[in-house]
């Protein structure tokens, strides 16, 4: 108990409250506001740190590793789903896309855990986070479309915009850039906002995620088939293992290796579902939202992060 991070306790509180059918609820506008805040804060803090002397050392290999992971991870995910579950092709492809992409809040919780363990992490990881959001969507579409019908050009343009310019990527990268441009000036002006409030905002947001996850579990029991749950627990471990390897190969510090594992092991629950709903209307959102939000997210936050952190410390020294 002593060692469970406080934000995780708030996740558990929300989860338990919703399972018990409490009417506790966080207004939509507040959830969205908190998620904007977290992206802004993560971006600015990363950018500011990047501007410090030596901050960019090792960025390119890490970015390349992140892009590659996001592009490639959907392929084993899809293969696994087709081999072991009865999901139709579009739904399997859509699910696979979620696991190549990443979850901002899982990263935030990982960052907090890394810092609580007294480790530092490379400042450019928020840029890696942003870079990993969208490639997986393209892979998922390719997986779904093999032999499928062509899309109308207008839809395709809209989809490309959605994928490349989706709000979270823009805000993350933009804030990162601003933090980097602003440097010490930005740090001084924004520190009470992006540092002081971070933990509190994360707690409130995780409370809401707990509520949403448990409610989703109840709303979409079709995703609760045993083999799907197994996928939702094993795939993040497989992804994290790849992330660990990639982080080590990219020469990151122990904290950075842990966060690469957290990223690769996490699954998107905002950007990818929205893109999939538009691009693959035949895929069942009840399956991919439930797996990502209600199975993999809790698993990562509660068990995955401490595990990856311990492994990273072992393997990378620290």
């Amino acid at each position: 108990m002593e060692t469970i991070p406080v934000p995780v306790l708030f996740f558990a509180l929300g989860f338990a409250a919703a399972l018990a059918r409490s009417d506790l609820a966080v207004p939509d506008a507040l959830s969205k506001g908190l998620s904007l805040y977290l992206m802004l804060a993560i971006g600015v803090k990363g950018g500011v740190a990047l501007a410090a002397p030596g901050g960019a050392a090792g960025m390119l290999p890490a970015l390349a590793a992140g892009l590659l992971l996001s592009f490639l991870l959907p392929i084993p995910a899809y293969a696994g789903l087709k081999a072991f579950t009865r999901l139709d092709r579009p739904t399997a492809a859509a699910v696979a896309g979620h696991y190549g992409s990443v979850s901002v809040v899982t990263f935030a919780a990982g960052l907090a855990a890394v810092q609580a363990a007294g480790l530092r992490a490379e400042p450019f990881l928020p840029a890696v986070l942003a870079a990993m959001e969208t490639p997986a969507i393209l892979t998922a579409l390719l997986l779904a479309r093999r032999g499928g019908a062509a899309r109308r050009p207008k839809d395709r343009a809209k989809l490309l915009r959605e994928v490349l310019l989706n709000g979270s990527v823009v805000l993350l990268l933009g804030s990162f850039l601003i933090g980097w441009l602003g440097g010490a000036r930005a740090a001084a002006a924004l520190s009470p906002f992006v540092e002081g409030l971070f933990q509190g905002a994360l707690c409130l947001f995780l409370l809401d995620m707990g509520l949403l996850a448990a409610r989703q579990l109840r709303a979409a029991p079709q995703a609760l088939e045993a083999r799907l749950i197994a996928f939702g627990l094993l795939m993040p471990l497989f992804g994290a293992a790849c992330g660990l390897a990639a982080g080590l190969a990219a020469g990151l510090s122990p904290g950075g290796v842990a966060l690469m594992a957290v990223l690769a092991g996490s699954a998107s629950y905002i950007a990818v579902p929205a893109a999939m709903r538009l691009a693959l209307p035949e895929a069942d959102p009840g399956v991919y939202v439930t797996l990502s939000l209600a199975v993999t997210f809790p698993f990562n936050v509660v068990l995955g992060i401490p595990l990856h952190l311990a492994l990273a410390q072992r393997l990378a020294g620290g």
Partner: protein
Amino acid sequence: MTHPRKRIEIVVEAVRAEQVTDLLDACGASGWTILPVVSGRGRTGMRRGGDLAGVFDNVLVLCIASEAVAAKVLEAREELLGARPAIVSVSDCAVLRAEHFR
């Protein structure tokens, strides 16, 4: 003083609302109104918004149009609905200022 028109009412996923209004525009409707939806139930089960990605949000699209435009809209029903969650209903109404509605 009033003029007969058709009142078309479509409940559809929020992420697909723009496709519906594009279709209404293409069929020659002179306007439409989108209303928010709290929750709904249909063949595809409960849909209650509030998930962070917005994929479970519905909206209601209301369009008042001439009989001719309404017929075109209904003909396009496959494009409109396909396999997606959505319902379409049509009823009679009367409007002021006919010139405002095609």
